[in-house]
């Protein structure tokens, strides 16, 4: 599914975080978003996940304008935010059940079995979330985002807190996901993660800029981040 956004605007109080954000994330592609801290990367992903309402602009899926972004984007996208979406007092299994209950519960549970094997979370199913390490929790968060089989994956610094082994596994999963025709929009500061992206977009002063291919890290940093 191809995702395109045009002139997205978002304001928090007096601060205009996104002035004119636009980008395209092609089907079967991994698109990276870079920018300085607080430039609006997470805000843009939240808008695309339907968790925030944009003040203006449009979101298009396969060329069709989305009329109710909040609901429709939630259906098509899986969002892995920086902040955990799990309830700390409950067990991993309980949290997964809760996220599986959004949508077709039985179908989601079937997928959960596969995803649990893939992300190796079965061993701590009965653990309370508050007792998990950051990496374990992140893995459960990723599974929650994938339960409803989204076609677009929105990842906000996904490998933060993950160990090296799981970072590699996540990369493999990303490759596998885009090979199967899924789209990924990934915000990151990690070179390794960004190396998976076919396209790079930078957000500076609330506006998006396509990063030309072939630029070195130093050039990208000086032009779009510093």
């Amino acid at each position: 599914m191809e995702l395109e956004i045009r002139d997205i605007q978002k304001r928090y109080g007096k601060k205009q975080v996104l002035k004119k954000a636009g980008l395209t994330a092609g089907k079967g592609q991994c698109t990276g978003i870079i920018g300085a801290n607080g430039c609006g990367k997470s805000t843009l992903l939240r808008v695309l996940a339907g968790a925030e309402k944009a003040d203006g602009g449009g979101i298009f899926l396969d060329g069709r304008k989305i009329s109710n972004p909040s609901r429709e984007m939630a259906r098509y996208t899986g969002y892995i935010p920086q902040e955990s979406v799990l309830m700390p007092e409950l067990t991993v299994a309980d949290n997964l059940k809760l996220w599986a209950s959004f949508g077709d519960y039985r179908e989601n549970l079937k997928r959960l079995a596969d995803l649990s094997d893939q992300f190796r979370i079965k061993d701590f199913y009965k653990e309370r979330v508050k007792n998990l390490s950051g990496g374990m929790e992140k893995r459960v968060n990723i599974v929650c985002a994938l339960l409803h089989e989204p076609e677009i994956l929105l990842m906000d610094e996904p490998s933060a807190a993950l160990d090296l082994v799981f970072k590699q596994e996540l990369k493999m999963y990303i490759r596998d996901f885009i090979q199967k025709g899924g789209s990924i929009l990934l915000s990151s500061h990690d070179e390794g993660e960004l190396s998976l992206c076919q396209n790079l977009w930078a957000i500076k002063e609330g506006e998006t800029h396509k990063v030309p291919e072939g630029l070195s890290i130093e050039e990208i940093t000086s032009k779009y981040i510093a």
Partner: protein
Amino acid sequence: MYCRWMYFCLNIKKFIRLLPAIILETFLFGILLLGIGAYATKAIYSDKVVNKFMVGVVAREEERAAKMLVRFIGSMDSIKDTISFTLLSSEKEAEKKLEAGEICGAILVPEGVIDSVLSGENIPATIWLDNSYSEMETEVFAEFTRAGARLLTTAQAGIYAADAFCREKGWESRIPLTEDYLNEAYFSAAFSRTSLLDKREVEAVKGLNLTDYYTIALLLAFLSFGGLSFGRYVQTKNGEREKLFESRGMGAGGRYFMEAAAFSTVFALLGTVVCVPVLMLVINKSSSFFKPGIAWLLLPAFWFVVGTFLRMLLQLTGSHAGGIGISFVVLMGFMAAAGVFIPSAFLPVWMEKAGRYVPYKIWMESMPVILQGEAPEKTIAAFIPMALLFLAAGAGVAVWKKER
């Protein structure tokens, strides 16, 4: 939708898992409250006020009569723990002591009181009351004096009968001795048996003794503060998770409704489990007005309503430390105004009036009704709109906070 039901069930599970920690925290709160309760009880019922308030007795002439009155009345079971009598030498001394607050009232025994009783003339004793004392003490003291006067009036019949009997038998010389004996016998028998004064013993609420009253008050306070201990674990903010819930069809209002219902359900369970054994203990150990009955099945509903209120309060003030602190202060204020700590009769008028508008007043009034085994439709009918009102208000606050 299934996700709402799941959210409700998982929140119940969450709160039940938190119960041991909550009970421990509540227990600590309880110790604090017992301290406050003990202090309040001492303040109200200690030497200073009802428990042993001092009454002066001034004998204008018949010191013998006054001494006898003091001795008999002072030994009455119903007042010996409440009033101490002291014999004063003159009205001036009584005035001084009243002004200094050393006595709360004085009985001026009239001249020839014994003769007046014997002759049926009934010269009334003058009672001086110190208005600076609380109304409750004045009322108790006035009741004692009224009861005493009634008893003296009845005593006359016996005295007349004894006089007539002595005269008929030609035992005129024995009349004073017989009268003294009868007076003593009457006072010691009648006064200690009278139920009139016992009935007028300070009633905090109609039909409740103080033990019952403070059992209800302490349970309500203890569990309300226990409910606040849940504060840290309730979700009053709109975080990333909540925003995602919303995008998937579970909005702030609906989410609040489910979470508050789960919170109140667990709180109702906690309330019932804590209060039933305490109530059974009170029933067995005192002359309690509580009667176990079918109406007690309303206890979970009662605590559910209290739970919805506490959850609404937390939603309003927030679940962070500052918010819980504000909730604590609000609860203290509400409870004080509703007479939870000190019965309303002892409160300043403005506070008593303010108390009429806080839910704790209704709960302090409806709980005794339930515990006395009655379940009037009015009480039951009040619970449903109250719970719905608190749930709706909390949901409104949740939506408002989200929009901000």
